[in-house]
């Protein structure tokens, strides 16, 4: 549509968008509000909008014993995280891949997570959070590296076998996980991998790899073949050309794909529930609060819902560009 010039029209546009967006974010905002109340305030009718907020639900969610200098620790945590995220974002936007930097971010997070239990006594929600991070990161790394190889080959090689692989990938990326729950459960029993990170990552890679393959193929198809051919004329093997020349060019596409795979892994509920007994991820851990007595004795369930959503919010805030790109190119080119 051509731009609307008349000021009243523009006002209506902004108003409509604002109304839509506020309705859309209402459930989240309401949950945040409820999580800051005590139970009496949360149950009150009519709903309270002005009250003295308490962070008790959050502290009892995360800590076994609440540390005395909590505000300072929180500040440190937020600053460190923010720094890592900002630099990770800078890297995601760069035109070149920097595996070393990615590794550094991972090491930083490892240290961060490792340091926290040394400082404070954390509750089990923290363990579930760490599990989620491990599983999500593992899934993304493996799924993306495997499928960028495959996606590249599929983009450069036509023919029946390539088409077969793609068809299978496409068919499987939209199947209900329910169909796989029992076979995976048996796989876990047979291999003895029940309740291990390895199994969870393997299964999630299996589920999301077709999608990543599909998406990366379409990204690679945008890159002219001449680029790696020039390098190969200079004597580089195809693999070297792929790693040295193509991956840097492809980096934004890889980041987009990785983000979507991360979302998929983070969202998984049913399979994780079937396959793990101890190493729950956050969506499964949330069943500790939903539908149990907790929802009638405190506001911790609201806090848990907020805490599960916040990492995703951060993702949206810092990686919006890449997410939108991934979502739209996945569909537009698909």
């Amino acid at each position, binding site marked *: 549509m051509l731009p609307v010039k008349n000021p009243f029209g523009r006002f209506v546009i902004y108003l409509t968008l604002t109304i839509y967006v506020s309705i859309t974010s209402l459930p989240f905002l309401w949950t945040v509000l409820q999580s800051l109340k*005590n*139970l*009496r305030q949360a*149950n*009150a*009718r009519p709903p309270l909008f002005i009250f003295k907020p308490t962070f008790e639900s959050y502290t009892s969610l995360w800590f*076994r014993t609440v540390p005395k*200098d909590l505000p300072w*620790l929180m500040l*440190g945590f937020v*600053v*460190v995280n923010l*720094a*890592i995220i*900002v*630099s990770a974002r*800078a*890297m995601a936007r*760069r035109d070149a891949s*920097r595996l*070393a*930097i990615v*590794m*550094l*971010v991972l*090491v*930083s997070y490892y*240290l*961060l997570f*490792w*340091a926290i239990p*040394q*400082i*404070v006594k954390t509750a*089990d929600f923290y363990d579930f959070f760490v599990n989620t991070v491990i599983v999500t990161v593992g899934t993304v790394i493996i799924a993306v590296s495997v499928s960028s190889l495959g996606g590249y080959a599929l983009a450069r090689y036509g023919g029946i076998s390539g088409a077969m692989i793609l068809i299978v990938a496409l068919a499987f990326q939209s199947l209900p996980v329910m169909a796989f729950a029992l076979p995976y*459960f048996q796989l*876990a*029993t047979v291999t*003895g991998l*029940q*309740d291990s990170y390895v199994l969870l990552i393997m299964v999630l890679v299996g589920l999301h790899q077709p999608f990543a393959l599909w998406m990366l193929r379409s990204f690679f198809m945008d890159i002219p073949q001449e680029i790696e051919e020039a390098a190969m004329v200079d004597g580089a093997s195809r693999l070297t050309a792929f790693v040295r020349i193509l991956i840097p060019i492809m980096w934004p596409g890889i980041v987009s794909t990785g983000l979507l795979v991360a979302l998929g892994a983070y969202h998984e509920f049913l399979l994780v*529930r*079937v396959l793990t*007994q*101890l190493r*729950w991820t956050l969506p*499964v*851990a949330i*069943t*500790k609060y*939903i*539908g*149990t*007595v*907790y*929802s*009638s*004795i405190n506001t911790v369930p609201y806090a848990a819902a907020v805490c599960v959503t916040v990492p995703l919010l951060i993702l949206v805030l810092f990686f919006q560009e890449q997410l939108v790109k991934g979502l739209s190119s996945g569909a537009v080119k698909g």
Partner: protein
Amino acid sequence: MNMARSRAFCLLALFEVALLVLSACGSAGAPPTAANQPSATGAASQAAATSAAVQATQGMTEASTSAAVQVTQGATEAATSTAVQATQGMTKVTTSAAAAGCNIKPPAQPQEVTFLGWPGWDVDTYAKWLDDCNSVNNIKVNVRTMDNSSAVEQMKLAFSSGSASPYAIVHQSNSSIQQNAYKGWLRPLNDLIDTYRSQYNLNDIAQTHWDAATFDGKILGIPMQSNTILLMYRSDLFEKHNLKAPTNYDEISTACKALKSEPGITVPFALDLSAGWAWATAFFEAIRSEGGDFFAQGGNAPAFNSPQGVAALTKLKQVVDACMGTQGLAMGYEQFQAALRNGSVAFIHTWADGGAAMVDPSKSQFPNVIKFAPAAAVEPGGKLAGSAWDDYWSIPASYKGDPDLVFQMIMQVASPERQKEAAKLGLVTRTSVASSSSLPYATAAVETISKGVGAYPKSPALNVMETALGNYLPLVGTGELSPKDALQKAEADYIKEAKTQGFLK
């Protein structure tokens, strides 16, 4: 080397330093560590942090890829040394505090002991005590809780896989213990109970509790919590309308009519009929109160499609119509307990352990006027429609760790001293403790248990029956099926499924 890249390196080096300082502060600042040469620890980790910082800066000036490696290495080394110190500090402190919490001889091999259950006052309190055993060398305790039906599903998955159970202790109710008992998924505890009977004074737990957990002579669970159904009501509203606490379902319906018009009350009375299993439970209490039963004497043949069954269901339906409506049908016990506390429900039939929150001023808006009475009977003079419910802790049959150790850990939580603490929150199972309970609802609870409908029937087919009933009874509540039709359909379903599974010939 471009600018952006070195900027990223700078930033990362800074985080590493920040992290180390953070972890150093933590280990030095934590009060218990103070005993463990605080200055030395602090200084050492600070030194480590500084060295990391120095290395990091070096790396930056070099500004090459190898810098990255160096930064990481430096950071990791320094970090590890701090880690070791920090952990050392912590173990020392905790072992000194251990004595009060967990009196167990440390096992020779490291053992991971995991508990699976559903949250409630009992698990919340007991789990904290179980956690104390973390302080014993070589023991690591995990506590996992999820909503009741999810937890039962997790058990099904874990025990049916045929591999070693990841859980050492599983929470059981009267209903779930049956499912697991007849499948052979729980370890008989008779040997352990005999060994430790005198040490932990197990005779103090009344025989009725043990009986409900005994299947073919095998005791499959340790009674940890006792529970029953109570009537909780707003005495101020009842006085205002000149009502007494109802003792049967007709009186409940009458009271509802009076209280319906009360401002702020959306549903005058509620009992849990929010799901299929909840209907099955309520129906069990009602049919027993009427003198009927789920199963025919000594077998798996269904007996619920009887005049008593129809009468019980009709009474339930009357209460639904007079008191609850669709709104009440949708409320689970956790919701209407909250509703009683915030004043939108006038009286409820619910689990006794919800009582503590009713009189807690920080949770309830009517702590002084909510009162407790025994559960109502269906017909005047009948048995009270509240079952004797226990929660058990069991050890899975497929658990491969040391059952002695796990048993002793359970006993730490069920010790008389601990049960005295627990008795402030809910009903416990040791007679010596329960008899001196100071809970506001203790009298009502004792009366319901003694004059009530007793424990759940024991049958391997109970689960099948509950599912069959759960599929049709809710439709009576909405008026889609008559009580008679619903019971007939449930009976047909039950017979079909029980035959497939071999419970009926």
